[in-house]
């Protein structure tokens, strides 16, 4: 009732450091940068990428190499993360798995959240036949057992690159978000600022991009961060069943899966190293997501100038 708003307290910050004219992109970036955790997440993710793609240079072992002399060795100067029963170098395996998992996780999340956002907003904003078709499609995919479909489909992609997994996983993970997005868009569509934009002559897709997506960005960002983790897990599950990434290729999921049974044994390193890498990836993505959400949301105090 009498909650003090920023207008009352007049936190006059003439943005001396920043130029007076700044568009939304610049403003969001500035607000994002103020968030320490977000920056940690961003830097962390960049480092993880560098680690995944430059890591192989640190060791002479390749993920397929077998060191018959040093099976079941703990972390040493030669095998940074140790070796498994067969003599695979865990460092090389983890790094190689990371490459695929990072790409799968991020791409699947991008694709599924992106299409959920696109289809959900389009269905709600345009209405009519668009809506009928999209809602029908969403419901159809919801009732189809996705895992079964993936298993049925996978033989067709036998020879294809592992990247086929990206659209396959994404195909079955957009529906629920899309429904939520549609519901939210339905309410936002009726707001006056959308109407105002329409009467200015702003084209429909621009309205969706400029007004609707930013206003539902919180859910999309949360969904994206969740999807990164979910995609990595789904991929490892598929791999476990033998449909995803197959030997000699490895992914973080397969490496963790193989190591899981050793988690509480003296060969803990088989599980702990790849698992911590997964945790780090998801943590970084979450930090970035939180930061982005705060930066886009004018009501959050975390990102405003102090």
């Amino acid at each position, binding site marked *: 009732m009498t909650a003090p708003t920023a*207008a009352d307290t007049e936190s006059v910050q003439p943005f001396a450091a920043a130029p007076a004219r700044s568009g939304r992109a610049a403003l969001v970036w500035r607000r994002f940068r103020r968030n320490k955790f977000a920056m940690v997440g961003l830097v962390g993710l960049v480092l993880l990428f560098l680690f995944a793609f430059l890591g192989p240079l640190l060791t002479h072992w390749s993920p397929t190499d077998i060191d018959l002399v040093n099976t079941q060795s703990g972390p040493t100067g030669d095998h940074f993360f140790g070796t498994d029963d067969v003599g695979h170098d865990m460092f090389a395996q983890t790094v190689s798995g990371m490459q695929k998992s990072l790409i799968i996780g991020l791409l699947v999340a991008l694709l599924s959240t992106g299409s959920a956002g696109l289809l959900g907003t389009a269905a709600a904003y345009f209405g009519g036949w668009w809506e009928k078709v999209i809602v029908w499609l969403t419901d159809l995919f919801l009732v189809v057992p996705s895992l079964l479909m993936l298993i049925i489909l996978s033989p067709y992609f036998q020879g294809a690159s592992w990247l086929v997994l990206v659209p396959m996983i994404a195909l079955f993970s957009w529906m629920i978000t899309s429904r939520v997005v549609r519901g939210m868009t339905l309410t936002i569509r009726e707001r006056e600022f959308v109407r105002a934009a329409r009467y200015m002559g702003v084209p429909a897709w621009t309205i969706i991009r400029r007004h609707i997506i930013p*206003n539902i960005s919180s859910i999309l960002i949360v969904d994206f961060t969740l999807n990164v983790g979910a995609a990595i897990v789904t991929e490892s599950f598929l791999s476990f069943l033998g449909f995803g990434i197959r030997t000699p290729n490895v992914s973080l999921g397969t490496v963790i899966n193989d190591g899981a049974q050793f988690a509480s044994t003296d060969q803990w390193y088989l599980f702990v190293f790849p698992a911590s890498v997964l945790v780090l990836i998801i943590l970084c993505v979450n930090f970035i997501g939180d930061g982005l959400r705060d930066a886009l949301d004018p009501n959050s105090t975390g990102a405003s100038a102090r």
Partner: protein
Amino acid sequence: MSQNLLLTDAAGRPKNPAPTGTPLLSVRDLHVTFSSEAGDVRAVRGVSYDLHPGEVLGIVGESGSGKSVSAMAILGLLPDNARITGSIKLEGRELLGLGDKRMSKIRGKDIAMVFQDPLSALTPVFTVGDQIVEALTVHQKLSRDAARKRALELLDVVGIPDPERRFKNFPHEFSGGMRQRVMIAMAIANDPKVILCDEPTTALDVTIQAQILEALKNAQELTGAAILMITHDLGVVAGFADKVSVMYAGRPVEQGAVDEIYYRPRMPYTIGLLGSIPRLDVSGEHGRRPLTPIEGNPPSMVDLPDACPFADRCPIVTDICRDAEPELLPAGPDSHPSACHRRADLESGTIPIDQVYPVPEIPETHLDAVPREQRSPVLEVKGLQKHFPLMRGAVFKRRVGTVKAVDGIDFEIREGETLGLVGESGCGKTTTLLEILELVAPQAGSIAVFGSQAANLSGRERMEMRKDIQIVFQDPMASLDPRMPVGEAIAEPLRTHGWSQDKAYERVAELLELVGLEPYHASRFPREFSGGQRQRICVARALALNPKVVILDEPVSALDVSIQAGVINLLDELRAKLGLSYLFVAHDLSVVRHIADRVAVMYLGRIVEIGDVSSVFELPSHPYTQALLSAIPLPDPRKERERSRILLPGDLPSPANVPSGCRFRDRCFKYASLNAAEQSKCRDEDPVIVARPGKQDHAAACHFADALEVV
């Protein structure tokens, strides 16, 4: 015993209870503080007043002035993080510090409350009757039958027709006005000693507001209760209250009898409030009286310095005002208390009351000199019609009726002119606007902008035309994207119409200055602005492309009075400076009188009266216009007391079910006074809008139109 009170007329009650004797409700030095992240919010800072039996005390203030919080404190309904100090005594009994259980015995029985929003104050899943019965049985031992009988009686008292049937209805089956009547019925159910009314009519249309005030008055006469009326509307209080307390920044800044406050204000804030209300009854030389806005915004209630909280907005501020907060003291021996360091100067007349605020000039344009007939029309609407089909059925939809939202209206706006379109909610104002803004062929009739028909426009031409016709919406918060910096929002129309980024930014800075903001505000989000500033941003956005016509959809109705005046003056100034034409939609006729050159009154999808402002307001000819004008309270206690109101019965009929013949006849007071032959004419013939005899620009759609002075 309480039943008797209601059944017998309270004739024995003294008509004007002397304000002596023991007060019924006595509030002393009430302070309410909320803890918040930003620090302690001191919402109420020392409120004291006495309320005597049968008395009406009006508490007036803008949003955030602490008026509702102080009322909630009386009922003990504040959240737990509120710290309350002071004393609240009901008939000598201290209420502060009573537990919830004890307070529950008092709430609804001794002190009743009427809330602002009657929809959320009633439980949607119980029938209205059950809710009144509950209100009764909570505090009284009554048998089911007795409670029911009494509930019916109460519904009858507050003027709900056919209470037997309505008893079983759910809240959603009632209109807003009817729901508020139910609230009043519940409030008086246990013969309370005090009725707290928190903005009881703010959410309602004027004609309904008049009905509700009447119902409240009746209820008060029956129960003899004292009323504490909280409102922002100085008009409502003028005719209703005996005493007024004006609150600002959590404190009463002026308290006294209603006439004292209105005719001898001793605090610049009160003077400013009175000067900033648009009034129906005052017209200046040019047909308009300039409003005197109060600059600035109310202070934050966190960390208030020891200074007059109004100092930053006060035109007669001196050094002492910034050094100490003034006490609430009488300005002279026979004066009422006010909290102003300069009260003595105001009392002695050293500073004349009417010169406290600089009176702004009414801006004039070169167009004002050109007679209306010689100006070219910018917007012509002919026979505009918008019907919505009413569908029923889950699988197979069939048409069961038609909602005649807009049913054939004509008007035109000429260059540099403002047309006010007024009517109550549901009369089709907004549909009319939206139809115009779509810029496509309407269902029937035609819309022409600068002489070119909207129906014949190609896609590109329509896009071009959007430059010339822009809109400002009612709610400045809803019409700005909360996630978009305001600079970007203002630039949006520019970017859409192909301006380069650099040019757009320059224009944004220019526009922000034009509407009285600073260019560096561009990178802030809408929530960092107050309501008035947000509306200025919306105006800036509408003006970005240099439109010729701006459609204003209730642009000031969501703003506080003191802010409202500033926006009205800004709109007036811009119109003169930029040669704009306005279509100004409003439900508030007083605002329209201030800003419009011509006015069109809408009722149920039709224009019933149209003409230049002075003709329509001084000699309204349609019974609906007359009722509408008469329902608006004047911020002038003496005039208010002498006025007799035309009360319209019932609510606006549904546009799905338009009465035959004249659509107003069901509620028309004139119809009732006609003879049978004349009545049948109203029943059978739909009146067309015809010019009033001897008038060039004044027409009304009534078979028996007759001028009547009502203001």
